[in-house]
């Protein structure tokens, strides 16, 4: 590679990256700009590209016009329970599939992977009917209980990780008189911290972002999550774009904070399926 060519490729890389940045960052700047404008500024002509005096109180006004605090609480409540359910179920399932030789193991694993090919939209209506028979409509139950039954993607991810832990550890523990529960809790779980972190973060992300689940099951506005709250804000304040954008920012903020602290786990989780698959 000559020095000359290298510099050109660098120039083009920067040029393209900056062009991409305009498209990917631009909407966020527009969101921020709109969220700190007064209502009159949103509809001003000629356009106000950036407010001279940011109106930060829009962010407080949100809490006054809709029970945003309640929505935060409900969302966090669902996130916590989903993490509990997802962790308990998937760690146990993946441990058995990766470490315990038993009849039917391969069939179970294959069936679990197979469910990845079934679109969620197919089972949503019959599952809704099932919950109506169980009397669980308009409650948090349908949004929590399924997490206790394992998730194909997480099972796959954890099985891959557990398999990479050398078997000699298990055998040594067996000799010392440990049973499967001890091996799982004292050996595998501590060694699988990185994979478990991925599961926790993606459960957080999926629950926080879920829109269809709450849309189907929650009617009472006291039970609304942030996603549903933002939707109701969209329909009742449909031209108050300064408030809508402030609300949208408030809904995303916790995710962005978590992302900054856990970037590595995010990337591991996303790439687990694509590369090793």
């Amino acid at each position, binding site marked *: 590679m000559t020095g000359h060519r290298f510099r050109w*490729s*660098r120039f083009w890389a920067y040029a393209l*990256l900056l062009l*991409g*940045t305009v498209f990917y*960052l631009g909407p966020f700047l*527009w*969101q921020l700009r*709109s969220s700190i404008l007064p209502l009159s500024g949103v*509809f001003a002509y000629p356009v106000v590209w950036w407010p001279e005096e940011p109106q930060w109180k829009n962010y407080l006004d949100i809490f006054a016009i809709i029970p945003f605090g309640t929505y935060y609480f409900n969302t966090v409540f669902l996130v916590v329970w989903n993490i509990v359910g997802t962790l308990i*179920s998937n760690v*146990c*399932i993946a441990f*058995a*599939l990766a470490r315990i*030789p*038993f*009849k*039917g*193991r391969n069939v*179970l694993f294959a*069936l*679990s992977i197979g*469910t990845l*090919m*079934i*679109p*969620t*939209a*197919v*089972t949503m*209506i*019959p599952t*809704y*009917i*099932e919950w109506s028979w169980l009397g669980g409509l308009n409650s948090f139950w349908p949004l929590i209980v*399924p997490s206790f*039954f*394992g998730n194909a993607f997480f099972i796959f991810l954890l099985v891959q990780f557990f398999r990479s832990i050398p078997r000699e550890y298990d055998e040594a523990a067996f000799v010392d008189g440990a049973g499967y529960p001890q091996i*799982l809790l004292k050996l595998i779980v501590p060694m699988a911290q990185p994979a478990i972190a991925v599961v926790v973060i993606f459960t957080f*992300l999926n629950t*926080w*972002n879920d*829109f*269809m689940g709450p849309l189907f099951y929650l009617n009472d506005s006291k039970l609304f999550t942030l996603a549903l709250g*933002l*939707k109701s804000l*969209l329909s009742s304040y449909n031209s108050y*774009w300064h408030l809508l*954008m402030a609300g949208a920012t408030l*809904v*995303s903020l916790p*995710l962005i904070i978590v*992302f900054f602290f856990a970037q590595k786990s*995010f990337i591991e989780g*996303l*790439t687990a*399926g*694509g*590369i090793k698959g």
Partner: protein
Amino acid sequence: MTFRKDSLWGWLFCLPLALGLTIWVAFPLGVAVVMSLFQWNMISPAVFIGLGNFDFMFFKDHLFWNSLWVMFYYTLLSVPLQLVTAFGLALMLNTKVKGMGVFRTIFYLPSLIPVIVSTALWMWLFNPQYGLFNLFLDAVGLPTQEWLTNPDMVIPSLVLMSLWSVGNIVIIFLAGLQGIPKELEEAVTVDGGGAWHRLRHVILPFMSPVIFYNLVMGVIAGLQIFTQPYIMTNGGPANASLTYVLHLYKQAFQFSKMGYANALALILLILTMVLSLIVFKSSNRWVYYEGDKK
């Protein structure tokens, strides 16, 4: 450890999975099959109508055919463009320039935020009078667009929006690109091959399993698009963005036609399987796995 004890522990730990597959997969699929033969509004008793729902779907419900077309149109337009965009971004992000961490974060952020947030934001960007896009077009002297109100524009607009949130695909591509052995790329360069050669004969073959994975996942997601048209247009204008799942949702929750909604769900399952099968079948023509003969 005896075999029986292994078996006991294995099934005990897998109990949630076995129950879950029964309660949340097999049972709902069974319910869907049975209820698709009934007319039922969830209040009055269900009435058995045989294949009546399917008869209605294929021969009387023109919105079914319309939504099928919208679904395929959206998927066929969005998935290839998403893959190309994400691949391009991944190639860019794989170059060694300063500040790459910042660029990666910028390109990933749109995929991180909830769909409802990006949908609200893009509704505002698409606003005909005060939205960023039309203000920008106006400022540079180009004609403004009816992004969501013109039946011919609405799907391309949704596709454009989907290109904004390709961050997940980019990260998967990026990880794949980083797995390409440096020696391979260097070998092509030494042989006098340019960037195109490197892309065509090293990068693309090496990346084909990753492209395949993203293609399958993209198609399955594309066929199910719901939230964006539901919030932005509710299927309009003139049903031009009435996607299949939105049609299904409306039948179930707006018109309380639960039997019919289940019939629609079953057809979606069959369509997804057929399409996945086609993609899988085609894969041995263009997907290379390491260790295979080239």
